[in-house]
């Protein structure tokens, strides 16, 4: 039998499939169907971790996802290790290597436990009150020590060997939770053919029925009823069943996010399976059947290993066939724990019940267990637990009238079950923005007004009786059809809320835990309230209660109750904290899914990309695009390659991939009017076949984008934008068209990806393409600079632009993308005889800077007007309006002294300034020095045989010839102000 505490019979474990795992180096055995927690308990292990702050020994508190204590690091193989796994959720399987956390040198002997001794000082918020002197000690001394002591497990340090999936799904009804209410809801909802998704976080459907071996439903064992329900659902094609799937987030428009765990429980997972999968469900309606959580009792040393929730004892005994102890004491303030007592007793374990309630306030449950021979002490309080690394007993005492505490006695125990009542799991409801309502009858917040198409069912809305849950599920799943109520064993419900158990000890010294993981005691809550922290949010933040990895599932109600008690308020007057996603922690990888490496942000590549790659290009990222940056040959440096490429363009011919430029077709009877309003330029008189350099502003008058625009016909413009600005410009145009000028008859179409653009630049450009082009007269007279023609190149239709961003004779050849590479190769072949040279963006930048052409985003930064960069003359003054026009008249925009674009030449011609370097006029001034401006572009210019720079400088155009000083990494460099053009001042070469 696997484990000393394994019961001989029963449980849902598969005794035919033994598994063994390792825990802190020890090999332990169990069965398929065990969780790591049940396997540890089967082997008699209760001490599984140390608490966050005081490093107190901690055991297993629960049997589910609300577990605050039993957090282990689990190693599933290389690249598959992670911390903080809840042992109560992790399924046991062969090959798991588990380890406890947050201790040094060992779990058994932890030096950090000194903190427990110092706990009188380390109260809630103590760190706000000290560690302030000496001043520099906080981040040098105190904080590093606090940081090292805090934290739970260790972060993985290598890449994740697993893969994660992502799926979107639509359904009519999403049912979350497959306990009795959820199963009933899914059955009812799916009867008519609607698409249903049923999801549950557990490995099996059934919810609380999985550990209920005594109830019956409709005359059959409840577990059999559940099995039949599941079989029926499986048989329905309209139903999708998802186990191991946690709905963790409820967003707007019934968007529910779920995490499905797929391989962690498999010993030999097939390679094709992802570890986890994110489901994003958009549901017509959502049914939340998420059940409820049991509350711990708050008494001294209630955190000793071996003390757990009463229902968890029931789960370990019935579901996992494990005896969590041989001598069990159940401490309770309500009825449900009596079932745990009865079930443990039935499994042959010694059980005593201690009930805080007066005998007269108890229900039939007392007689129910007494008749089995179980001792019940009613009207008793628990003073404290004994034992350190494992509970050894409970000190209890009778409660007299008016709460007087009588004589103490100790009940020996090796396991204690506690039950302080139940709290509906309203997390997802609250995330859906539904309003909670406090229900006095069950001392809990329950779903009130829904905000989305959603309904809660069963225990999740405080309906605890089994027959009620099923009836509620049916009604939720199909409100229109009345179904007969199924008879079921009445559940033992009802409890008396107790915030902290009465004690005869000095209450100011008692350490009764409310939030186990974060080591928050009832005293801490008292301290917070005493210090004026009255709101729930304040108490939560000051004490950290409810902020642990269980997000307060076991602690919230006790904390609220304690606060209410201290403040003398009713609990609902204290309110509750906001429930925030996720319901349980979600692996980052699951949220990332496939969006990593190449898919992190899919790269856009041009039709010519492959060619560039084959020809050794280095690429740079520009927006989403990969652009060829330069084409090094042999062992050339970037500097050498760029110098060579520049020279080739100036003297022969260069070929450049300009496909990434944004392209938009503006079409319609009002196209010219639209262009007039969007751009600063005038378009009405531009003849079809002509091009113009266009500049557009944002509403604030600052340059937004630029590009050459061709008028193809009266009603058709081919607009180009910057590479990075393409989407933004289209959005901007659509925004105005749709919201401001809906009367204009204009259509906007992005054609960026429809055309490959090959820029052929240099004195020999015409000669290279001449034989390839048909239907276009290439002569200078017929086809002058800044015009466009349509025709064919290499037999492919082309929009051929005669434009130049280099200052040389040049063409931009637009061809359908599918033909881009072929045309490129044909031109390249033909150009070989002329020494054609492919060049990249860096050379393009240098060539345009030599001519003083701006790049939007480099010379401009969203604070620059057309006049600032010397393009004020482009503004069509006669136009009544265009976007940004009004702003250009603002006082500060017309004021003197604005930064203006100028050229800079360094005294040392070999010095290439840093782009972004700041400019001042007197290098000897002390800091802080007001800068006059900054260098926007700076290159080595092969054509000029020296470095050149463009800069924005206050009053720059008045400063021609002045010497200014420019920051260098460790000093300043002198440079002279020139006009922002360094080559071919007259711009004659483009007309060649």
């Amino acid at each position, binding site marked *: 039998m696997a484990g000393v505490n394994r019961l001989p019979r029963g449980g849902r474990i598969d005794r035919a499939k033994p598994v063994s795992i390792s825990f802190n180096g020890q090999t332990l055995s169990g069965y398929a169907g065990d969780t790591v927690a049940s396997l540890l308990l089967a082997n008699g292990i209760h001490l599984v971790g140390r608490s966050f702050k005081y490093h107190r020994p901690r055991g297993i508190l629960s049997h589910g996802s609300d577990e605050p204590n039993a957090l282990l690091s689990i190693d599933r193989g290389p690249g598959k290790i992670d911390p903080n796994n809840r042992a109560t959720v992790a399924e046991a399987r062969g090959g798991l290597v588990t380890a406890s956390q947050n201790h040094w040198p060992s779990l058994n002997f932890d030096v950090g436990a000194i903190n427990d001794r110092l706990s009188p000082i380390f109260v809630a918020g103590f760190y706000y009150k000290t560690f302030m002197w000496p001043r520099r000690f906080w981040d040098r001394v105190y904080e590093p020590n606090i940081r090292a002591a805090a934290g739970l497990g260790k*972060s993985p340090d290598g*890449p994740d060997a697993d893969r994660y999936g992502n799926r979107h799904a639509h359904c009519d009804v999403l049912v979350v939770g497959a306990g009795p209410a959820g199963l009933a809801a899914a059955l009812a909802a799916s009867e008519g053919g609607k698409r249903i998704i049923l999801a549950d976080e557990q490995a099996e459907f059934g919810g609380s029925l999985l550990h209920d071996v005594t109830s019956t439903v409709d005359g059959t064992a409840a577990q059999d009823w559940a099995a039949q329900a599941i079989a029926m659902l499986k048989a329905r094609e309209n139903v999708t069943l998802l186990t191991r799937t946690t709905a963790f987030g409820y967003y707007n428009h019934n968007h529910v996010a779920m995490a499905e765990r797929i391989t962690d429980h498999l010993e030999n997972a097939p390679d094709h399976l992802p570890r986890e999968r994110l489901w994003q469900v958009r549901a017509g309606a959502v049914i939340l059947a998420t059940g409820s959580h049991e509350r711990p009792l708050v008494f001294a040393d209630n955190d000793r290993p071996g003390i757990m929730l009463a229902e968890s004892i029931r789960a370990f005994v019935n579901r996992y066939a494990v005896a969590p102890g041989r001598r069990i004491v159940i401490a309770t303030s309500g009825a449900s724990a009596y079932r745990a007592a009865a079930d443990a007793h039935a499994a042959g374990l010694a059980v005593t019940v201690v009930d805080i309630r007066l005998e007269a306030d108890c229900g039939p449950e007392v007689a129910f267990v007494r008749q089995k021979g179980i001792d019940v002490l009613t009207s008793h309080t628990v003073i404290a637990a004994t034992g350190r690394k494992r509970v050894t007993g409970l000190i209890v005492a009778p409660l007299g009238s008016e709460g007087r505490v009588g004589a103490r006695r100790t009940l020996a125990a090796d396991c204690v079950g506690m039950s302080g009542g139940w709290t509906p799991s309203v997390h997802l409801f609250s995330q859906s923005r539904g309003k909670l309502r406090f229900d006095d009858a069950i001392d809990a917040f329950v779903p009130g007004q829904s905000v989305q198409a959603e309904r809660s069912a069963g225990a999740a809305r405080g309906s605890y009786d089994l027959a009620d849950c099923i009836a509620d599920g049916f009604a939720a799943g199909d409100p229109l059809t009345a179904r007969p109520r199924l008879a079921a064993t009445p559940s033992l419900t009802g409890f008396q809320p107790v915030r902290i158990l009465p004690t005869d000890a000095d209450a100011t010294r008692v350490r009764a835990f409310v939030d186990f993981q974060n080591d928050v005691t009832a005293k801490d809550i008292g301290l917070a309230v005493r210090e004026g922290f009255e709101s729930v949010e304040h108490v939560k933040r000051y004490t950290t209660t409810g902020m642990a990895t269980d*997000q307060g599932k076991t602690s919230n109600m006790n904390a609220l109750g304690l606060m209410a008690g201290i403040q003398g308020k009713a609990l609902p007057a204290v309110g509750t904290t906001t429930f925030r996603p996720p319901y349980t922690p979600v692996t*980052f990888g699951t949220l990332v899914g496939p969006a990593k*490496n190449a898919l992190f942000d899919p790269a856009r590549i041009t039709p010519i990309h492959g060619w560039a790659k084959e020809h050794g290009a280095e690429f740079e990222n520009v927006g989403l695009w990969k652009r060829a940056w330069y084409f090094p040959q042999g062992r050339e440096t970037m500097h050498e390659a760029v110098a060579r490429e520049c020279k080739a363009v100036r003297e022969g011919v260069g070929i450049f991939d300009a496909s990434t430029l944004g392209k938009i077709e503006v079409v319609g009877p009002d196209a010219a009017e639209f262009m007039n309003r969007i751009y600063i330029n005038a378009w009405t008189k531009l003849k079809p076949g002509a091009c113009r350099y266009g500049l557009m502003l944002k509403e604030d008058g600052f340059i937004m984008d630029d590009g050459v625009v061709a008028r193809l016909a009266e009603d058709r413009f081919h607009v180009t934008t910057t590479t990075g600005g393409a989407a933004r410009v289209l959005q901007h145009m659509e925004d105005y068209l749709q919201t401001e000028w809906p009367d204009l008859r204009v259509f906007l179409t992005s054609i960026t990806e429809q055309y490959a653009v090959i820029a052929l630049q240099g004195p020999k450009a015409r000669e290279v393409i001449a034989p390839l082009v048909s239907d276009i007269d290439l002569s200078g007279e017929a086809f002058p600079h800044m015009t466009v023609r349509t025709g064919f190149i290499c037999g492919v239709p082309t929009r051929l632009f005669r434009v130049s961003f280099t200052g040389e004779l040049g063409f931009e050849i637009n061809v359908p993308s599918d033909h881009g590479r072929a045309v490129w190769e044909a031109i390249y072949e033909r150009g070989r005889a002329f020494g054609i040279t492919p060049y990249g963006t860096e050379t393009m930048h240098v060539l345009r800077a030599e001519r003083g052409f701006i790049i939007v985003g480099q010379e401009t*930064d969203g604070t620059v007007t057309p006049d600032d960069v010397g393009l004020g003359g482009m503004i069509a003054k006669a136009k009544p309006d265009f976007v940004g026009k009004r702003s250009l008249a603002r006082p500060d925009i017309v004021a003197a002294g604005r930064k203006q674009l100028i050229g800079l030449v360094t005294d040392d011609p070999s010095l290439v300034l840093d782009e972004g370097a700041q400019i001042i006029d007197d290098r000897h001034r002390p800091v802080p020095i007001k800068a006059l401006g900054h260098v926007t572009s700076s290159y080595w210019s092969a054509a000029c045989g020296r470095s050149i720079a463009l800069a924005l400088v206050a009053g720059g155009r008045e400063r021609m010839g002045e010497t200014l000083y420019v920051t260098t990494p460790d000093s300043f460099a002198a440079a002279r102000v020139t006009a922002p053009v360094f080559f071919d001042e007259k711009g004659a070469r483009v007309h060649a």
Partner: protein
Amino acid sequence: MRRFSLRTLIAEAFNAHQGWERQWRNPEPKPAYDVIIVGAGGHGLATAFYLASEHGVTNVAVIEKGWLGGGNTGRNTTIIRSNYLYDESAGLYEHAVKLWEGLSQALNYNVMYSQRGVLMLAHNVHDVQSFKRHVYANRLQGIDNEWLTPEQAKAFCPPLNISRDLRYPVLGGALQRRGGVARHDAVAWGYARAADALGVDIIQNCEVTGFRRNASGAVEAVETSRGTIKAKRVGVVAAGHTSVILARAGLRMPLESFPLQALVSEPVKPVFPCVVMSNAVHAYISQSDKGELVIGAGTDQYVSYSQQGGLHVPMHALDAICELFPQFSRMRMLRSWGGIVDVTPDRSPIIGKTAVPGLFVNCGWGTGGFKATPGSGHVFAHTLATGEPHPLNAPFTLDRFRTGRLIDEAAAAAVTH
């Protein structure tokens, strides 16, 4: 005010901590105050504290619709730095950093300002130009900011992935060593406690619903959910809800409100020594003293006053985090949330007068105002006390959107936080 110190802490340990006082009172509103501050976030509370401590104006109320510090102050990722581009901004934020450096002592409350360094990553040529521009500008301003190569960045932040194969490889970074993080709640609480001790009334659970103006148009009282309260001067410091409140005074503010989201991981032992910001991919990360990785995202794309943003936004932030730090892929998201941030057209705040006499505003901090808390409160207190701006906030007028004298930090770098 009972002073906090190790000595009093130990003394109280022997007294079962029964002797601690309330950190602030919970007073009923008086009928009238000299100054009313609307919004008990960090900025509002700091304003009250400096009004009382530096200007002797103690007849002050801070009126808060919820709980003090429950707005963006208690929701933010607490990145603090001052390496802004323009002299105006750098001056203001540097003023704040200097105050941060002595804040725990000034308030007698440990706000845990941890100068662990803020590293901003450059991922493309444009970033490199922009960051170098910042580094050089900061040098002239006398503010620390250094350019690091990828290898230097890795040495400073060992978990960083500087592989050339990344979709957006790290090309370098700008590091401000004096930058860091602080404990957000402690900032609100520390200012509240210190202001309260000087006589300021902090009135929680009281919503300002309107303004009363006298015959000459000047503000003379605020209407609240707990009645009308008179004031000679009113300062509105309500972050994402400023536009709503000021609409009640007939003012249309150049603000857009967006949800901004953040998340934390489960706590782990120290793995992340500094703060890393990557504006290109929108990821902001540090590790809290509790051990949680604190991760900020970019703003949601739609304007909204709802604090719930879309899931895809934190997902993208995590994509970026796992790209830069692939070892965190198996960590888990513990909690995520959003706050409503008030964004101006030039991404710089508005601190000063409004068109309504007696009504002042401090808003527009958007995604990055926590870092300015002490400085903002300090200069706003000056403005409220004297009726005129402090030289440091003089450029941050509401009027600049009319004159065009913008302080466009976003244009320069598209930086959040």
